[in-house]
């Protein structure tokens, strides 16, 4: 005995009723019978979907701003932060006339996430200083071939006709910040039409 907090918990002597097998079996059967009338806990998956937490770490998305320009500036911080080394990117410089496509002067010409390597730890999202990459509460689709799991920009960048709301993933402080004055300036510079 090392401490005075120990508590002997095991009782191994069986009473006569317990030795007879049957009472315990009957009480067990009563329990299982009772459960036959309980509501099942099953979620019928393809039809019903469980509600994921708003901060669930699922499929990645590369956000655009409200004007439709990609936010990613190819700083490479997400690739560095990735413990699984799943992210690969090539940066390119924005040419004149592409302002509506890319928000910053530099952008990711190639952005690939290898979903077979990805461990969905969320560190890329945390690392991103441009609120470009987010994880969403959807899960990655299964596929038959490995090649399909290397997600390029075609699968990662959000479509303007099906925008993904990530506002719940951001803290209240970020939201406040966006409404504040500095945000206005920020928006004026990069996004005159108003940020999401």
């Amino acid at each position, binding site marked *: 005995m*090392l401490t005075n907090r120990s508590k002997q918990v095991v009782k191994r002597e069986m009473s006569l009723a317990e030795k007879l097998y049957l009472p315990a079996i009957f009480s067990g059967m009563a329990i299982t019978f009772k459960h036959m009338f309980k509501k099942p806990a099953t979620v019928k998956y393809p039809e019903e979907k469980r509600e994921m937490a708003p901060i669930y770490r699922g499929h990645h998305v590369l956000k655009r701003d409200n004007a439709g320009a990609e936010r990613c500036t190819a700083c*490479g911080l997400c690739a560095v932060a990735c413990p699984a080394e799943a992210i*690969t*990117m*090539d*940066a390119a410089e924005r040419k004149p006339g592409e302002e509506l496509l890319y928000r910053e002067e530099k952008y990711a010409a190639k952005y690939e996430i290898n979903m077979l390597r990805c461990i969905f730890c969320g560190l890329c999202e945390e690392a991103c200083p441009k609120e470009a990459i987010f994880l969403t509460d959807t899960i990655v689709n299964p596929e038959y071939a490995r090649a399909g799991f290397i997600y390029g920009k075609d699968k990662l960048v959000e479509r303007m006709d099906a925008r993904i709301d990530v506002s719940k993933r951001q803290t209240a402080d970020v939201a406040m910040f966006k409404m504040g004055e500095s945000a206005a300036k920020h928006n004026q510079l990069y996004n005159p039409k108003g940020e999401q």
Partner: protein
Amino acid sequence: MSQVDILQTVDKLKRCLQDLKGLPPIEIKIEYDFPEITVSRDQVYRVLQALKENKETGFTFLTTLCGIHFPEKEGNEFWVMYQLHNLFTNERIRVYSSASVGDPVFASVTPLWAAANWMGGEAIDFYGLQFEGPPNLTRILNADEMDYHPMRKEYKLEDDSRTDKDDTYFGR
């Protein structure tokens, strides 16, 4: 554990080591909340046995054992760390012992603690250490035909010939 406790442990440790005859003086370092001693490898079994059996110290529990590789310390490249615990007083110490790269042989402490068997086996697998004495410790984790010891510092984590990941731009 507060600082005072550690000093008490150090005192006990000193007394215990003084009782052992023929032992060169051993320096006791304090590293965070652990006293640390370094013992030459031919004495380490004796010292550990004394620490275990001495009534005052009573380090009867081997918490962990692992190998360490310091390639820059010439002549003492391979180290073994034994961490002991006195469950009654909750004092803990670490004992180190070292050997050179050509002759990384240590005494097996499995007779003292059965737990040391696999812990030693792990060190054999990953550092190529050898433990002499009963029972014969062998590799346990790696494949039998593997002829190198991957945790040694000369092995890089990633192979340079790797082609599955194109990280020319943001490589590590």
